[in-house]
């Protein structure tokens, strides 16, 4: 008993003693808490708070932290990736709570930032390639029809030409110039590790617009974008890296609690410029003058109202009739567009999982009446980490983009308002209908379609219903297994599926002259699945003090297919989205060709593109010595189904070196806090052509073509079994510097890209009997300088902060050789750009215009020998300019004062020329197009010094060949240099107890400084194919101008 009691007492005493000690300890401790924020006052989640001596903590979602410390004086260090570490000394009092809020300064150099590279991540310090990083704020700050337009001005060496103001329009992106001729010149887009479908021509060119394959992506889901530019960076993508690689990483969940972000915006848009089309009085004056200059007497004949052969009296009556109407057609076809966007996302997670969910709705009307792009997206990104060594990432996204289409450019709509819609034509006239007794029965609109192609009729009363709906599904996943710290094994796979359904319905009014149908519907569906799968394994060896190295090897496969069918339908009451039975019938009769089709289904036809596949093996070796010497070597073998067996495989190696000079002991500089030099060499490729180029093909004998009752079969294309990869050899040398304790970072790069075996779809001479054939013949050089600067001008510790980021790129582009083909062998579609050896790609090949002869008023040209001549001779054509800029730049200034912030993004493009192909008729021979008021500066009498020659209705007056009114002279080529205020953004941030609210107003494309005599010097017209897209980037043909928009938004984070 005693023994038991003693033992119990001992245990009790021990417990009491422990409790006392604990109590004493608690009583002798203090608390340190506070909040870690960035320079804007935003809490930094997961920032590290480290107390000298070992204790530490992480901040929560809002940047708050708390530590319990014994009374003493401590040195506490706060750190967060992308920011300078900051240390504070704090004294902890017994039993007291001490608050220490810390604001971290952004590190312009960010050596420890993780950079996404192909098939992995690296510390920025170790990166030996040229990579630009753009974060989500920069992408969502600018309201654009499609996310890629927001990259403009954000990265050195990346030229972004915004699409037109039409809803959903795409941009052209060129990374370090343009190397391709006939193969796609766009960079490779990779989302969460999977190359996506990015064919701009799956839908052809309808309504003067190409379908934008990137429009369905939600910018709010993007965490950041890395643009890989040199061979060291793109080499791991081998055959598809020649034009750069854009890696898009979507947002992920958080492992701490739930974060909710909500944003809502409302705004309006309008054309950034308005055309200077003539009024009726102006146009008739000009036309009359041309008529009289040509020797005509009396009143000039007027298109749609009279003819040249009409009697003078008939012409006079038509003239007087015309004077009664004055329609501003551009005004008729445009509006102030409404824009609205709702976006909500949830980031959540726990110890072994995290998830991001995003939902967005974005209705983006364009200023073109009837045109809107509505995007609805739903994304879930899930990360599971059931074991420390095992992680599964799954990204799922579905989106639907509905494009309410209208005609543009050559196809009508706004294009017609700048051309065939003459001001003396009314949108409609009122016709009074009477009954048998002479009473007014009805007053109806007559659009006078018997006279002319009135563009207004398509916009009203649902006369035309045209909708293109893309359903885009992404499903990607990665399984990462890291059994030790030295090994990562990654298996990945994904699917990107695009389903595009198009309804183009013309109602009875539009179809009134069709003898065979009251209404017509053109319908199509195209499904384009894209499958990827692969895996890689990385092995690392590290000696903590001396070296580290890693070797990654992997393989990848990809298959892309596209197929669908289209139908011609008549006499149905609407498109399939309004009359779904029509769709059912199309499906029925397509699936069973044995069924006898009803008459209203005129035809159903399939289309099947040849599937294309890739198979790749790649490896990357990285070696780091003393954390200041870096070596990287990559090698990739790609096989492509696009090439014949002889040349199916390509080998694409790269090697690069980096040296952090500032880490050398001998290095000492007061101003330079960081200095790194790097250089790379590598070979990358491009195979972005169709799958059938290699094949000698025959027409399908089973297709039913006959002559005189007999089946026919015939050769279609010559093919080229020796077709092979287009390759680019790139040499890059760069310097990265941090100045003034890294408050300023500078990155200066030089590059030389030489493309050889460039794929050319050369038109074969007529007498061969063939059309065209792909060959490897071209050589293209791009050489340039890149400069990127980030400067924290004013210290973050002040209330007023100012940060500047800028980038600049000079690029020299030259088509070195076309393998003996003449300039006319390779052209930009219907434009006048040609492949001229010695000149840049996108060169305009025109007859040089000298001046207007003051005595005669006739145009004076420069012949091939450099002499002035009145003779317009197409043999005198030569390279007169090109559409590629020599210099591009972006400059962003961000200023903050307390809770206010103001940012402005200026972009500039210098040296490109615009070939205004539509000006041939807006400012040239007087035809049946309306004209621009710039034409007022025309020659009228001897002695006049004028920009434009004497007016005429007869093309031969200007020396043009009879029947050839296309006046291809440099008179209509203009300097397209500009400086544009791309974005101006004013925001007020309201900190909340947990989270914040930001109110923002932003203006986009507010103004442009330019000498361009046209609508907007930045334009992307419609293209026929990839070659046209490469060659005609600076060509204008009734292209709608950019959109100027003002957006009000609210963002809330909780």
């Amino acid at each position: 008993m005693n023994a038991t009691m003693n033992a119990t007492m001992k245990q009790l005493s021990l417990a009491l003693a422990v409790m006392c000690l604990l109590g004493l300890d608690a009583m002798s401790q203090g608390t340190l808490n506070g909040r870690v924020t960035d320079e804007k006052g935003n809490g930094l989640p997961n920032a590290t708070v480290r107390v000298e001596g070992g204790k530490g903590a992480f901040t929560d979602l809002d940047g708050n932290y708390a530590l319990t410390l014994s009374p003493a004086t401590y040195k506490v260090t706060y750190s967060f990736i992308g920011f300078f570490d900051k240390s504070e000394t704090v004294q902890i009092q017994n039993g007291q709570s001490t608050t220490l809020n810390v604001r971290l300064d952004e590190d312009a150099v960010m050596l420890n930032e993780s950079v996404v590279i192909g098939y992995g991540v690296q510390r920025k310090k170790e990166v030996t390639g040229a990579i630009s990083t753009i974060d989500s704020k920069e992408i969502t700050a600018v309201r654009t029809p499609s996310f890629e337009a927001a990259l403009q001005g954000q990265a050195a060496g990346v030229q972004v030409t915004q699409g037109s103001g039409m809803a959903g329009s795409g941009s052209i992106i060129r990374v370090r110039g343009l190397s391709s001729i006939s193969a796609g010149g766009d960079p490779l887009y990779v989302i969460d590790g999977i190359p996506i479908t990015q064919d701009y021509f799956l839908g052809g060119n309808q309504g003067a617009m190409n379908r934008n394959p990137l429009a369905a992506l939600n910018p709010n889901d993007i965490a950041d974008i890395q643009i890989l530019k040199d061979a060291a960076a793109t080499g791991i993508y081998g055959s598809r890296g020649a034009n750069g690689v854009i890696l898009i990483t979507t947002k992920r969940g958080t492992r701490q609690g739930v974060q909710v972000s909500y944003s809502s915006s409302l705004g309006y848009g309008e054309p950034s410029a308005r055309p200077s089309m003539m009024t009726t009085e102006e146009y008739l004056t000009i036309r009359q003058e041309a008529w009289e200059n040509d020797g005509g007497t009396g009143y000039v004949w007027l298109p749609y109202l009279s003819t040249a052969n009409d009697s003078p009296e008939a012409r006079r009556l038509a003239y007087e009739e015309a004077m009664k109407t004055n329609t501003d057609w551009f005004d008729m076809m445009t509006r102030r567009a409404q824009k609205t966007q709702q976006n909500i996302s949830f980031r959540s997670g726990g110890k072994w999982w995290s998830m991001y969910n995003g939902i967005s709705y974005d209705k983006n009307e364009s200023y073109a009446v009837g045109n809107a792009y509505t995007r609805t997206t739903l994304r879930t990104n899930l990360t599971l980490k059931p074991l420390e060594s095992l992680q599964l990432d799954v990204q799922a996204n579905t989106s639907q983009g509905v494009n309410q289409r209208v005609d543009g450019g050559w196809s009508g709509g706004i294009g017609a308002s700048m051309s065939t819609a003459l001001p003396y034509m009314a949108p409609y006239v009122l016709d009074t209908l009477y009954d048998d007794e002479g009473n007014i029965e009805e007053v109806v609109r007559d659009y006078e379609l018997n006279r002319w192609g009135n563009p207004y009729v398509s916009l009203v009363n649902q006369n035309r219903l045209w909708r293109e709906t893309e359903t885009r599904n992404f499903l990607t996943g990665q399984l990462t297994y890291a059994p030790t710290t030295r090994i990562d094994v990654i298996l990945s796979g994904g699917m990107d599926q695009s389903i595009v359904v198009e309804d183009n319905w013309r109602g009875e009014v539009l179809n009134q002259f069709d003898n065979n149908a009251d209404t017509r519907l053109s319908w199509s569906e195209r499904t384009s699945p894209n499958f990827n799968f692969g895996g890689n394994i990385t092995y690392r060896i590290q000696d903590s003090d001396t070296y580290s190295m890693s070797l990654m090897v992997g393989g990848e496969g990809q298959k892309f297919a596209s197929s669908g069918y289209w139908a011609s339908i008549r006499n149905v009451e609407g498109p399939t989205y309004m009359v779904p039975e029509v769709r059912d019938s199309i499906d029925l009769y397509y699936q069973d060709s044995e069924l006898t089709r009803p008459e209203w289904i005129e035809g159903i036809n399939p289309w099947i593109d040849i599937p294309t596949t890739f198979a790749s093996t790649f490896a990357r070796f990285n070696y780091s010595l003393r954390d200041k010497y870096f070596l990287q070597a990559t090698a990739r073998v790609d096989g492509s189904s696009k090439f014949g067996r002889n040349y199916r495989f390509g080998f694409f190696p790269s090697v690069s070196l980096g040296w952090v000079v500032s880490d050398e002991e001998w290095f000492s500089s007061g101003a330079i806090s960081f200095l790194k030099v790097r250089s790379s060499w590598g070979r990358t490729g491009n195979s972005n052509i169709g799958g059938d180029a290699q094949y000698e093909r025959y027409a399908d004998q089973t297709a039913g073509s006959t002559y005189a009752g007999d089946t026919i079969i015939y050769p279609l294309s010559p093919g080229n079994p020796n077709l092979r990869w287009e390759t680019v050899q790139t040499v890059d040398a760069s310097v990265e510097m941090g100045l003034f304790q890294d408050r300023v970072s500078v990155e200066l790069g030089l590059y030389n890209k030489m493309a050889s075996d460039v794929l050319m779809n050369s038109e074969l001479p007529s007498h061969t009997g063939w059309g065209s054939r792909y060959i490897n013949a071209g050589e293209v050089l791009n050489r340039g300088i890149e400069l990127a600067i980030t400067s924290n001008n004013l210290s973050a510790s002040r209330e007023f902060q100012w940060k500047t980021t800028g980038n600049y790129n000079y690029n020299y582009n030259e088509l070195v050789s076309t393998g003996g083909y003449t300039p006319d062998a390779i052209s930009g579609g219907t434009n006048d750009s040609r492949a001229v050896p010695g000149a840049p790609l996108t060169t305009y090949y025109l007859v040089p215009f000298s001046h207007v002869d003051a005595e005669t008023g006739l145009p004076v040209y420069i012949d091939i020998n450099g002499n002035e001549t009145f003779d317009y001779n197409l043999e005198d054509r030569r390279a007169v300019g090109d559409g590629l800029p020599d210099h591009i730049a972006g400059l962003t200034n961000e200023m903050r004062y307390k809770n206010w912030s103001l940012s402005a993004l200026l972009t500039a493009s210098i040296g490109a020329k615009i070939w205004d192909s539509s000006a041939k008729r807006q400012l040239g021979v007087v035809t049946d197009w309306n004209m621009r008021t710039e034409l007022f500066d025309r020659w009228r009498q001897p002695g006049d010094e004028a920009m434009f020659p004497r007016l005429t209705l007869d093309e031969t007056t200007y020396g043009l060949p009879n029947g050839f009114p296309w006046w291809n002279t440099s008179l209509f080529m203009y300097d397209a240099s500009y400086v544009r205020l791309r974005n101006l953004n004013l925001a007020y941030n309201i900190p909340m107890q947990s989270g914040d609210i930001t109110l923002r107003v932003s203006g986009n494309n507010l103004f442009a400084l330019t000498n361009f005599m046209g609508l907007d010097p930045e334009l992307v017209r419609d293209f026929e194919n990839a070659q046209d897209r490469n060659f005609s980037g600076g060509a204008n043909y009734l292209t709608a101008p950019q959109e100027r928009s003002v957006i009000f938004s609210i963002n809330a984070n909780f």
Partner: protein
Amino acid sequence: MNLRIHTLLIVLIASFGLHSCTWLDTAPEDLVLADDALETEEDLQALLVSCYDVLANIYDGDVQLINELRGDNTAEPRSNGDLQAIYARETIRWNSYVGGMNREFFYPVLRVNALFDAFNFVPGISEETQNRMRAEGSFIRAFCLWGAVKIWAQPYGFTADNSHPGIPLPTAFGDNTYPRATVAEAYAQIESDLAVAIEFLPEENGVFATKDAAKALLAQVKFLQLDYANAAALASDVIASGRYTLETPSNSEEFLRLRLPIDIVSTETIFGTVSNPGISDNRADKFGDWWKPLTNPEITLDPALYQWYTQIATGSAEDGRMAWLENHPAEGQLWLKRFSEYDYFNIPLIHLTQMMLIRAEAYGELESNLSTAIDDINAIRARAGIVSDVYLLDATATAEDVIEAARMEYRKETLGMGLWVEQLQRRGTMGEDITIRNAPWDCDGMALQFSASEGNVEGFTFNPVGGCN
């Protein structure tokens, strides 16, 4: 360590596995590749028929119009710039209409060359079949090369030795490019092809080429070469075969349909193309497009032609062919109605009337067999409904009378079919003072410009532009 290296190697080997499998062979089964397209005799026959198919497509009114616009039968096209340029004989490389036709003329040539090439690898083709196919192919190639050289080169006889530039002569399958051969070389190739055709073509071959067709084509070639003896002999052979007879229209409707029936092939047709309204297969649609007077026809005749047309017969009662014309003197227009009344018709490319008139004129030039020539001409006139002796040649007609009458009837009978301008050029080479719409018969622009694509490879010699105004 070894295990890890092995793992890396496994990954490498696995990924290389993708390369070696059929993963990269993606051509779908329904894609017809060259290796699979031509495997049997039926395949070759289908390839051969496709050559006729192209001929039917380009001779659907287009080739005929190009040749009419180079001559003096038509007025200036109403609005089509490409056609106006042909009329002005000022075509440039970028005339899409002319360039398109330039390319299409060589489609059959390519296909014929492919056919001949296929004889090397398609097994089981009997010698007889091969000879027949080779003969048909040769005929088609000759037809196209001759059609092309007449449009894109100055005529035979423009230079004494015909060393002036002709057209490229691709005679082997492939995508090789060729320089322009001389006109002499072009005609040599044409004659060589026709010799093969005459030797091996059958006398009956449905709507396809026959021995008569080859002879008749060669007769025309010889006629333009001023080889009147052979031209007449070949024409006589064809006429004497008895397989062709003159149509005998008896009313306006039948005259409108003269040699242009739809359900049957004209009894005059030696070689032609056919349409099939049953399946909406119209190989005469361009005649309608260009000449059809829905509002204002794009193409009308030279109004002066009306006076010429009526100089020996002033009304339909005297010349049934007056049914072809519709005169609009107030508008200064003369319409050709033959192609506008019907949507579908079969087109004769070589016919009996041609042979008779070629023979007649050749005999006139040879000053021999004038009685046969007179009979030929009178038969044509009588068929037209001309009964008055005043308008028929009598037995004492001179060679000059025969030649004049033969030319007049040739122009009348072939109106709109594009066969007149070559006769004017022939007469120019004979030394006659020929002007075509106030320009010499051999002015530069008479040879139309080649397609711009011909200049895609260095070294091609284009025709001079213009020079006819």
